[in-house]
């Protein structure tokens, strides 16, 4: 019964995730730039505004703090998918956009009590832009400049989480970083017979590795502190520029470094069920190597987040048995647009979750409502609603006895 229930839930969540298969950029401010990223976690962490760096999770493997995986006693599979609905506005124009993101996946495997190995896939950044502009050219019908921007950067983490003592968990993570950023521009004459399009395209592939360390300490049964340090990512970038005329093609390699980031937070249990969480996360501005158009437009990134969670109760009515989560975060982007005008995102979050019937596991849902940028400061803003669905399922692994199926 339990296996069938898990299978059913998994099928349903995967169907929902497949709906987001046509991935779009996270934000109009992405600009096909490597610096954009999304914060770690699943729907529970999103519902608490990613303020969960000090919050242990005994249910899921996609957490804000990898040290939390030491809490897991069963093989745990977690999956998280976000759908992003937004309205982009300038002073004169506006457009509705639906932006889907590739899911994040993590599997945690307990090697022994308190020692958990984890591996998975996290989308660090995904960009997707298709737009075109008509250009005035005297003497001929106006051509279209058709832009096609694609980018995907992802992390494949290999982690080891260890419960050092009853109060201290630590984790180390090797992160394999891969991805590509593609910028394509075609000039196309839609109304003219015999007119060929001409193409200019830049492909940049990124590869690198980095490591991460995290710690989660229970100072008191109701006071937790957590911290994460993500080391710099030194990417090797292979860049190919191709044109309709092959003799203009070129290839070059160079390095791009994403500076280290750190985060720290506190989780306070007001009562057994009510917890307040907080997080501060920061990263220095990257050097614009390979992105010189952003010279002078990059700044330190910062996240300040707070959350409030009422945990589920084993007794009581339906609403008593489901968790309630609220949060608020302010994320100052790495980007200034125009130069000197920082881009800030402010979001309120909420969410809840349901236990998977018949066994450990949960389906969490979350909602983010907020705005990125402002017309006054940036000339453009994006009002965003993000819907997240997270799935956690667990299964104890044991050696099968001979003769049993």
């Amino acid at each position, binding site marked *: 019964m339990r296996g069938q229930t898990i299978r059913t839930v998994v099928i349903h969540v995967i169907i929902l995730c497949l709906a987001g298969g046509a991935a779009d950029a996270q934000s109009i401010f992405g600009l096909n730039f490597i610096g954009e990223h999304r914060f770690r976690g699943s729907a529970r962490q999103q519902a608490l505004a990613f303020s969960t760096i000090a919050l242990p999770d005994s249910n899921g493997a996609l957490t804000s703090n990898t040290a939390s995986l030491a809490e897991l006693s069963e093989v745990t599979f977690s999956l998280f998918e976000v759908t992003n609905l937004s309205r982009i506005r300038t002073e004169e124009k506006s457009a509705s956009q*639906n932006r889907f993101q590739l899911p994040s996946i993590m599997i945690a495997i307990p090697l022994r009590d308190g020692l958990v190995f984890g591996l998975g896939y996290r989308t660090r950044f995904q960009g997707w832009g298709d737009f075109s502009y008509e250009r005035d050219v005297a003497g001929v019908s106006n051509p279209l400049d058709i832009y096609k921007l694609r980018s995907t950067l992802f992390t494949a983490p290999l982690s080891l989480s260890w419960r050092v003592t009853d109060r201290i968990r630590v984790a180390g993570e090797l992160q394999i970083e891969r991805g590509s950023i593609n910028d394509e521009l075609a*000039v196309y004459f839609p109304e003219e017979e*015999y007119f060929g399009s001409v193409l200019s395209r830049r492909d940049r592939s990124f590869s690198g590795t980095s490591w991460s360390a995290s710690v989660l300490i229970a100072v008191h049964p109701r006071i937790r502190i957590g911290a994460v340090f993500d080391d710099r990512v030194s990417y090797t970038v292979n860049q190919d520029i191709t044109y309709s005329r092959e003799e203009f093609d070129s290839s070059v390699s160079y390095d791009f470094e994403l500076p280290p980031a750190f985060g720290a937070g506190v989780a306070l249990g007001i009562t057994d069920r009510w917890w307040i969480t907080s997080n501060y996360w920061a990263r220095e501005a990257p050097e614009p190597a390979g992105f010189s*158009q*952003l010279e002078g437009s990059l700044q330190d990134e910062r996240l300040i987040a707070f959350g409030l969670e009422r945990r589920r109760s084993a007794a009581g009515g339906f609403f008593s048995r489901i968790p309630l989560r609220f949060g608020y975060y302010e994320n100052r982007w790495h980007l200034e*647009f125009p130069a000197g005008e920082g881009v800030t995102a402010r979001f309120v979050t909420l969410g809840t979750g349901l236990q998977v019937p018949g066994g450990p596991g949960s389906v969490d849902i979350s909602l983010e409502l907020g705005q990125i940028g402002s017309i006054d400061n940036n000339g453009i803003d994006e009002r965003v609603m993000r819907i997240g669905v997270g799935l956690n399922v667990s299964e104890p692994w044991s050696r099968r006895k001979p003769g049993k199926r």
Partner: protein
Amino acid sequence: MNGKVVLLLTICIAVVFACCSSEPEGPVTRQFIDSLAYGVKVGDTRVDTFEVSASTISVPYGIGSSSLLRIGEIQGIVFEAILLSIDISAGSAHAGTQVSRAILSFPVRVADTTLSVTCHELLQGFEDDDTISAVPPYDPLAIPDSTGGTARILGLEDQDFSIDTSLVRRWLQGGGERLNLAVIWNEERDPKGFIEMQAREYESEPVVFRVDFADGTADTFPVAGDYSIASFESEGLDCVGGVATRIHFTFSLDDLDERAMIHNSYLVLTVKGEVGLGVTPGDDRILLLPSDFYYYLYTPGSSNPANPLFLGGTEVDNGSFDAALTQVLKLPLRGFTADVTQGGRVNTGLVLQSDLETVRIQRASFHEENNDTISKPYIVVIYSLPADFIGGP
């Protein structure tokens, strides 16, 4: 809740998510493009024009295997003679028999007037496959008719030419295989007029030579070969089929930006509709041929018209247009311009010819002067410069 209902709801939610359409990003991303925040700077798109020199080249081709024979003049194309090769090998059977009457009968189908012509005996034979652009040598003494006269009128009502019987008897007794004749238009007497008749290739009612003998027998001698001799005196930029007149365009593309990525290029010509000829009346009414002028544009193997390689080359374009309509043509140059500017091909110019040069009589002429409404030939190249990608090492 039933599991199937839950699954159905899940799929419905997924479909709703997937179907939520986005509006175009274009308008709202404008400032990111203008500020180069994407790091992509579009290159200019330009329209450049290049002067073209043009000259008309005559090529010694003629049409020998047409379904119609022509004599007279139409749109400047002069058909000065019709050559006939009559098979008289069967004439030896009548050797010694008196000839009572001999008629050379022309199946005239189209004539806007009558023409004054004379018949002459050719001094040499010919074949339909020959390329003949001028009347071969002939006996200057015209063949007399039954009354001794030599002036003849050819028209819809005047299709039969009587031939002096003694001359016919001599031909038949001569034992020759072929009788080669030329019907020559007396252009000075009838400066205008055009007549078309069925040729041997029409396969029905060609020119025939009928002879009645005094013993009451008669014989018809078939035409084994027939040919219309056409000529054309070019007065400008003329492209003519049937008399193989081509136009050679020469130009330099050296001033084109060396970074140009070409969208399109074309040769611009203004048609002189008033002198154009897409179809002769006979082609139109008898053969029901379309009236479009079919052109073939190629880049020759040599830029020197005296070089045999000039007559062939690589196709650039082909198509058709109404040669009788004054209009501006834009003949696409396809990959030619890119090949020349990128060093893949030597610029030997372009040659425009009738694509039915050896099959049809057609004429297209083009203006070679500029004024408010027309222009001499020129080449247009539309291209974009490569985008600049900002960034890199």
